[in-house]
């Protein structure tokens, strides 16, 4: 407080009575809180007897020790709104945490790398077996990679592009497609009967063809007969020519066909064709030559299925000289056979 204020404080007091009465009228200073405070003091100090009317307790003395607390109305509403907001936020957070916890807690027990519940061992082996030895079924790399005949000696079952070569037993395999169900081993040496070509039925299992193939378009859509595939087709190998020039080897077993491997592109063959009623050809002798080697394999009995009226797919047991890059017309096949011959 500076000097000037101090002088004001001192000199603005000690007025005469008349001035004080004027001040009390012109400058009333008792505000509500001060008035109530002083009133409460007055009632507290006043003897109780002075409030009794006809020896009964007056209402001024009924309640003591209470303090009138005047809080602005807006503060009451703000505090209520804040409390409600806090409760709502807390409940929302708890619900959100509970929902996320349920999602995170659910375990993912699917260890199948193929995504179809296929269980397999972790052992990875590569086994070379003779071409006609099918003691086990192995998964191979995707069909996009080519394999030589010498490398391929057993059935391969492409499941997906992420397939790796692992050792799988029949009990553990749960194929994605129906062609992989109930895979069984086949005898090592399969003798194909002479009359195995009596009935040739095209059997192209669903989902057995790689995604990048157009074999669906090449293979006739004729339905197989009601006879068991093995009795119709006979045990043995079926080779189908694709439009990209690769051969796909199919094996027929009692319960279906398992897709085979791709053979090398420049295999050639020749055959003695016999046209059947279903437009398939049988041949008694189909020679298949590998262009990059002198190896010649002879299929004694083969089966060919027509893709359509003109083109056909070579199916053979042995190999013959043939240009595998092209689809062959029936006549071309005969012409080529006469040219190449074995």
């Amino acid at each position: 407080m500076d000097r000037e204020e101090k002088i004001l404080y001192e000199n603005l007091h000690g007025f005469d009575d008349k001035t004080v009465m004027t001040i009390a009228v012109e400058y009333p200073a008792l505000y509500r809180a001060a008035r109530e405070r002083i009133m409460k003091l007055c009632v507290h100090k006043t003897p109780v007897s002075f409030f009794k009317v006809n020896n009964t307790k007056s209402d001024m003395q009924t309640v003591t020790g209470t303090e009138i607390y005047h809080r602005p109305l807006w503060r009451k509403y703000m505090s209520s709104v804040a409390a409600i907001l806090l409760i709502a936020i807390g409940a929302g957070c708890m619900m959100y945490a509970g929902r996320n916890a349920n999602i995170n807690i659910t375990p993912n027990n699917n260890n199948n790398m193929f995504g179809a519940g296929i269980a397999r061992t972790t052992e990875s082996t590569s086994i070379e077996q003779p071409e006609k030895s099918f003691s086990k079924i192995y998964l191979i790399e995707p069909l996009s990679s080519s394999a030589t005949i010498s490398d391929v000696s057993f059935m391969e079952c492409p499941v997906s592009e992420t397939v790796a070569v692992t050792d799988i037993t029949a009990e553990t395999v749960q194929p994605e497609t129906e062609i992989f169900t109930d895979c069984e081993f086949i005898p090592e040496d399969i003798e194909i009967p002479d009359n195995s070509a009596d009935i040739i039925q095209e059997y192209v299992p669903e989902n057995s063809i790689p995604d990048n193939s157009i074999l669906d378009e090449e293979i006739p859509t004729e339905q197989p007969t009601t006879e068991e595939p093995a009795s119709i087709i006979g045990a043995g190998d079926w080779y189908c020519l694709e439009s990209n020039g690769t051969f796909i080897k199919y094996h027929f077993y009692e319960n279906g066909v398992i897709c085979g491997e791709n053979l090398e592109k420049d295999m050639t063959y020749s055959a003695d064709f016999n046209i059947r009623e279903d437009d398939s050809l049988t041949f008694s002798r189909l020679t298949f030559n590998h262009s990059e080697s002198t190896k010649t394999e002879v299929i004694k009995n083969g089966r060919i299925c027509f893709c359509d009226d003109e083109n056909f797919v070579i199916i053979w047991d042995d190999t013959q000289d043939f240009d595998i890059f092209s689809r062959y017309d029936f006549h071309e096949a005969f012409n080529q056979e006469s040219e190449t011959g074995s």
Partner: protein
Amino acid sequence: MTDNEWSAILDSSPKEAYEYLFKNFGNLVYAIVINKLGSSCSREDIDDCVSDVFVEIFTNAKKFAAETGSLKSFVSTISKRRAIDAFRQLSRKYNASDSLDKEEDAYVPVSEENIEADNDKKMEKSELWKAVQSLGEPDSKIIMYQYFYGMTVVKIAEKLDMKRDAVQKRSTRAREKLRKILSENR
């Protein structure tokens, strides 16, 4: 309500009598007590003194006779005496020395010098009072509430429905005006 009526309701309705007393004479009692104690005592002491005044008025209400004087003078007298008593008690308590000791009700040795000093003091107070009144509203109110009643700027702003900064600025300007007025008068 007349003074006689108030005397009549003292027995029938003490609460109503009390409220009437407080409502009509609360500011007067407060001003009288502040006039005596304002410059040297705390707010609690002042409230305590005011409450004592009303208690004494109420307890001595039966001594009041409308024929001898007005209720207002009755209240004023009790307020003034009670304020002086409180000041003396508080002075002894706080060992405060104040110029109010030389007030008219206090015992002061009579001498020419004291009389002149008192008169000069009174003249100064009177001039100051007039100067404050000449400020006009709301400056005069701000000065009185701030330096007579000792209210804070916040309370003054609330009472006058003004902003705190505005009250502060007006108070500063009012003091400057007072300084000019008083210097001109001298």
